[in-house]
């Protein structure tokens, strides 16, 4: 019954081939034409219909495609005599899937399988449908049917995976694992197993039930030979033994692994763990565990007696000695690092003081100090010693620096390591300003002197000493933080730009620069640097934190929109295609990957960034259209008036979140996207660990999503609330939904207030207090935007409510005045106190942008809605006399509000314009001249001077043609000009936003004057 020879879906293949060819070459019109002819001959062929639907979908005609598909489906289900082959069904499936109707595809297959219960091909199709729907239970049932039908191992494993998925990702209880185990056991007894992956799944089923000895028995039995790579087998064995508590045997197994792979660090840690009967490294990972595990190696030692510890540690030492002696080359770091770990444990157990550990570190330096990974290798060991000891270590290293390697590249590596160690232990924070400057100069000199080493290198290869400029930049930023002397900040930028002139591929420089530019308000420049990193695909999830947060508070809406769109598209595409890839893993019998893929999809679905982007995307749209109420309303309509987002806000508290951002590459001064030390004063802090603040961040993200996802709905309700206020009371009590609007808005206001830490009444008191000058803006803390939003929505609600009469009451100007004065005094206060952007990195520009594009914009919408409802229109009834009076009160209030907003915006626009218009040359001079104070040996400019000297007379024979040419291209004035124009781009966008709002308000002013 399935496709017979030469037939495709019951139609001769030669007739179908041209259609496929046309589709493949994207000639959809031609394809459609041939299909229409085909359909005239086979009007009831589901396959021909499916093809037509497929073509229509590709042409973007989704509705037509769906109706043709449904037609085909109906034919298939109705006509018993029709062919029901996998080709037809899978073609329909493709179309249904693309139309987001997985359920319809599934029901086609279900019907077909019901009709032909023993057709394996159809059952596989059905299984695939369930995989796409993540219906693990039905997957299991279908797989079992297939297994019963043909008894193949793979179908059994499909069922077992489906069971495991129910337990790991569904609501299945752990008891189900027993069922999976039973199935496997029975199959093994009668057929054995033939795939290594099947065995791995078997182990994981047993492991999940803590049946370690059962698993070990299987591993050491006949089936164990399925694992062809000896080390893999030993790793499983070691893990199972350790988990079973047989540490002594496990330690022996890890010893064997290390004899085979002496460089396996993880195996060594497990070996030690087993020696010390410590299970901390086996603790189970949960899905929302941070993706970058802490660097610190956990270990438990307290349960050991002195004697036991002594004997075990001496065993370990002897073994490591042996490994070291047997190592075929001395470039293996593991045996030496192992020695460090042993010393660390001794120290933690109180056996030794930290001198031995320091000694071991020094030895490690003398052997591997030239490697770029030295500092990251020893980080965990340095963490356990006291600050004094760290300093002692550093001093000893410094003394060592007189005896550097004779090989120049090695000597350079050792010097860089020294500097990085200094950075790592926080010594840079203890140095005086003078010392820091000296150190920056020294590093720049080192860089300059060693440039000739890279003469022969291919431009694609990283150059020797590249890291130096990153460290110089870090020092200069610290100098800026301490002294607030802008010169250092500019110098930090210059250093990195200089580095990029010499080799333009260094991504580490680009990341530092993008943060410096962001901090300097030159966001468009930062974005350019970001784009040059070519962040795409999965990197968007791990790297976009460098850029996205700043962009959210910027006026660069087009760029922001692209960033969010690209990111959401990537994630959504993955969610769409992930199931197909999971099925691929099933088909290729890589069962462990099945589980991994499903879990990975879940991890991404719970990504905190994804959630934030989903909320920020509509908010951006709402900001962009806020000057035009009709456009805004159509956006709100497309968002289902914000209902789904309210739901998201409700759910967020119980949702688990994942944090997949890679923060390792962030600069020291902004270790997470929420933190920027430069915003605060320098506080002699001695050490800035790049800690993983997941807990803190989690609460923060939840708060943001919870609050922000209420916005679309509150905006919608505010517009509604403001637009019905002119209807008379009979209408209000009649069919219109005003009471509902009012009460819903009140509920949301209550929630909003609660998130700010107050009851509704108290929150209202706070805003009233601040607006009357009884309380200062400090009362709002860092939540200023949210408080002002609250005031705006409160006013909108108050227009339609009688509850807060004392603050405003029925259409009286009280709450209007409240919002006007809050916006006015806060925004104008900011503008008037702001210094020129060129002299003050990260001033209040981001907050100013947010004020204008959020609360002020929402207030503008309330005004627009009021004006619209005040305008006489044919549909409205004549107002009664009493209404006229309240109308006049309202129009008065609206006029005041328009006037107030216009005044604010005009001043902000003027400020921006003044910034833009101030002469470029002056601004460039402000940036460059502090660096060009030749001959000074303090203050900014010393590093810059070194580079200027180098550039002025490059020695071509020493540096080679490429580097010399690059040096000739170096132009600090161009860098300064780019900064200036980058700031201007941002300011111009902001100015444009203000102007557009002013224009819209002026129109409203004219309209309201006619009422």
């Amino acid at each position, binding site marked *: 019954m399935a496709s017979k020879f030469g037939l495709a879906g019951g139609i001769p293949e030669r007739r179908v081939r041209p259609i496929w060819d046309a589709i493949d070459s994207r000639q959809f019109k031609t394809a459609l034409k041939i299909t229409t002819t085909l359909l005239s001959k086979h009007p009831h062929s589901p396959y021909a219909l499916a093809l037509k639907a497929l073509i229509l979908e590709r042409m973007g005609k989704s509705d037509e495609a769906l109706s043709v598909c449904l037609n085909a489906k109906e034919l298939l289900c109705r006509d018993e005599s029709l062919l029901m082959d996998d080709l037809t069904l899978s073609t329909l499936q493709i179309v249904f899937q693309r139309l987001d109707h997985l359920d319809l595809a599934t029901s086609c297959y279900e019907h077909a399988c019901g009709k032909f219960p023993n057709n394996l091909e159809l059952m596989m199709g059905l299984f695939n449908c369930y995989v796409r729907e993540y219906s693990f239970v039905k997957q299991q049932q279908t797989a079992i049917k297939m297994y019963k039908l043909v008894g193949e191992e793979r179908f059994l494993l499909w069922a077992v995976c489906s069971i495991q998925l129910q337990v790991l990702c569904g609501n299945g209880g752990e008891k189900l694992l027993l069922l999976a185990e039973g199935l496997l056991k029975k199959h093994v007894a009668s057929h054995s197993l033939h795939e290594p992956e099947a065995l791995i799944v078997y182990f994981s089923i047993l492991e999940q039930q803590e049946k370690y000895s059962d698993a070990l028995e299987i591993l050491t039995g006949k089936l164990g030979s399925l694992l062809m790579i000896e080390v893999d087998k030993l790793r499983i064995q070691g893990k199972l033994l350790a988990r079973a508590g047989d540490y002594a045997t496990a330690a022996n197994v890890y010893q064997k692994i290390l004899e085979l792979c002496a460089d396996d660090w993880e195996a060594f840690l497990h070996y030690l763990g087993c020696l010390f009967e410590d299970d901390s490294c086996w603790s189970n990972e949960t899905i929302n565990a941070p993706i970058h595990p802490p660097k610190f190696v956990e270990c438990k030692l307290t349960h050991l007696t002195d004697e036991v510890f002594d004997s075990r540690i001496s065993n370990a030492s002897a073994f490591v000695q042996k490994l070291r002696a047997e190592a075929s080359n001395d470039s293996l770091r593991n045996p030496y690092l192992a020695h460090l770990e042993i010393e660390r444990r001794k120290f933690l157990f109180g056996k030794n003081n930290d001198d031995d550990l320091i000694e071991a570190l020094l030895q490690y330096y003398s052997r591997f100090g030239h490697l770029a990974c030295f500092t990251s290798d020893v980080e965990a060991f340095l963490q356990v010693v006291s600050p004094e000891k760290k300093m002692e270590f550093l001093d000893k290293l410094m003394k060592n620096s007189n005896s550097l390697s004779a090989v120049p590249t090695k000597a350079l590596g050792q010097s860089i390591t020294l500097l990085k160690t200094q950075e790592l232990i926080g010594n840079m924070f203890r140095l005086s300003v003078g010392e820091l400057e000296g150190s920056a100069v020294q590093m720049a000199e080192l860089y300059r002197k060693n440039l000739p080493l890279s003469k022969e290198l291919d431009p694609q290869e990283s150059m020797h000493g590249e890291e130096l400029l990153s460290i110089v930049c870090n020092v200069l930023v610290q100098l800026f933080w301490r002294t607030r002397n802008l010169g250092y900040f500019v110098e930090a930028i210059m250093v990195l730009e200089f580095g990029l002139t010499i080799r333009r591929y260094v991504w580490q420089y680009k990341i530092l620069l993008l943060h410096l530019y962001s901090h300097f308000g030159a966001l468009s420049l930062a974005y350019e640097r970001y784009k040059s990193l070519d962040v795409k695909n999965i990197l968007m999830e791990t790297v976009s934190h460098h850029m996205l947060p700043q962009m959210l508070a910027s006026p660069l809406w087009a760029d922001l929109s692209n960033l969010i769109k690209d990111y959401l598209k990537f994630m959504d595409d993955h969610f769409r295609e992930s199931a197909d*890839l999971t099925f691929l893993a099933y088909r290729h019998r890589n069962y462990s990957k099945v589980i991994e893929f499903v879990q990975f999809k879940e991890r991404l679905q719970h990504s905190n960034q994804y959630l934030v982007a989903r909320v920020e995307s509509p908010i951006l749209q709402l900001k962009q259209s806020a000057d035009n109420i009709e456009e805004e309303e159509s956006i709100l309509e497309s968002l289902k008036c914000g209902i789904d987002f309210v739901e998201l806000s409700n759910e967020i508290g119980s949702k688990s979140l994942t944090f997949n951002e890679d923060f390792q590459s962030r600069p020291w001064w902004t270790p997470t996207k929420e933190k920027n030390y430069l915003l605060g004063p320098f506080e002699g802090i001695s050490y800035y660990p790049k800690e993983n603040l997941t807990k803190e961040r989690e609460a923060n993200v939840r708060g943001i999503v919870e609050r922000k996802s209420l916005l679309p709905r509150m905006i919608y309700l505010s517009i509604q609330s403001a637009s019905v206020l002119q209807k008379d009371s009979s209408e209000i009590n009649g069919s219109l939904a005003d009471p509902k609007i009012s009460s819903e808005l009140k509920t949301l206001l209550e929630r909003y207030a609660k998130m700010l830490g107050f009851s509704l009444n108290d929150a209202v008191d706070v805003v009233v207090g601040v607006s009357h000058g009884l309380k200062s803006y400090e009362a709002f803390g860092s939540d200023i935007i949210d408080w002002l939003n609250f005031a705006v929505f409160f006013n909108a609600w108050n227009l339609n409510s009688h509850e807060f009469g004392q603050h405003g009451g029925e259409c009286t100007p009280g709450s209007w005045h409240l919002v006007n004065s809050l916006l006015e005094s806060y925004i104008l206060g900011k503008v008037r106190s702001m210094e020129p952007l060129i002299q003050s990195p990260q001033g209040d520009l981001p907050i100013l942008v947010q004020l204008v594009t959020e609360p002020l914009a929402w207030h503008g919408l309330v005004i627009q809605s009021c004006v619209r409802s005040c305008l006489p229109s044919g549909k409205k009834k004549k107002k009664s006399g009493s209404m006229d009076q309240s109308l006049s009160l309202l129009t008065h209030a609206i006029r005041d509000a328009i006037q107030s907003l216009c005044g604010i915006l005009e001043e902000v626009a003027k400020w921006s314009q003044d910034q833009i218009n101030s002469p470029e040359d002056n601004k460039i001079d402000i940036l460059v001249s502090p660096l060009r104070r030749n001959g000074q040996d303090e203050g900014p400019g010393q590093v810059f001077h070194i580079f200027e000297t180098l550039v002025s007379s490059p020695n071509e024979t020493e540096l080679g043609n490429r580097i010399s040419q690059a040096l000739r291209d170096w132009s600090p004035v161009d860098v300064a000009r780019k900064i200036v124009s980058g700031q201007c781009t941002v300011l111009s966008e902001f100015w444009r936003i203000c102007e557009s709002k002013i224009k819209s308000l002026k129109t409203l002013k004219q309209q309201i004057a006619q009422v």
Partner: protein
Amino acid sequence: MTTIRRFCCNDLLRFASVNLDHLTETFNMSFYMTYLARWPDYFHVAEGPGNRIMGYIMGKVEGQGESWHGHVTAVTVAPEYRRQQLAKKLMNLLEEISDKIDKAYFVDLFVRASNTPAIKMYEKLGYVIYRRVLRYYSGEEDGLDMRKALSRDVEKKSIIPLKRPVTPDELEYD
């Protein structure tokens, strides 16, 4: 100092410092996952202390008859772990799996004709230039198809260089 193990999905979230390098391509998800779903033994990652990703290798095994071979799709090492022979270790692992487990005849790879440092490295590892593929990279740059014979190809027939360059459509596999 290096634990080499199978690459898993979560490593995609850890490899940013490797992939930000301009010569390392970040493919789309279905590309990585297809490799993981079909050839998990050919996709390995090297991890250093603190679970840092040092580098990784991805590849596959394919072909008919005597052209049954392992293929290196990508091999890359993070800047701080370079010049430590890590790429060599990863390559050796893939060669061993192709040789011992899948009994392939040879391993091959493509490299930009301009990427001299990489070509030199592969030559050191025993690869020879088998043929030139004209305009292989985005229709612009030529690629070099480099090969290394495995034990099954006793006479080393698979690596006898072709006399003339080929075009991308003449390639047997993608």
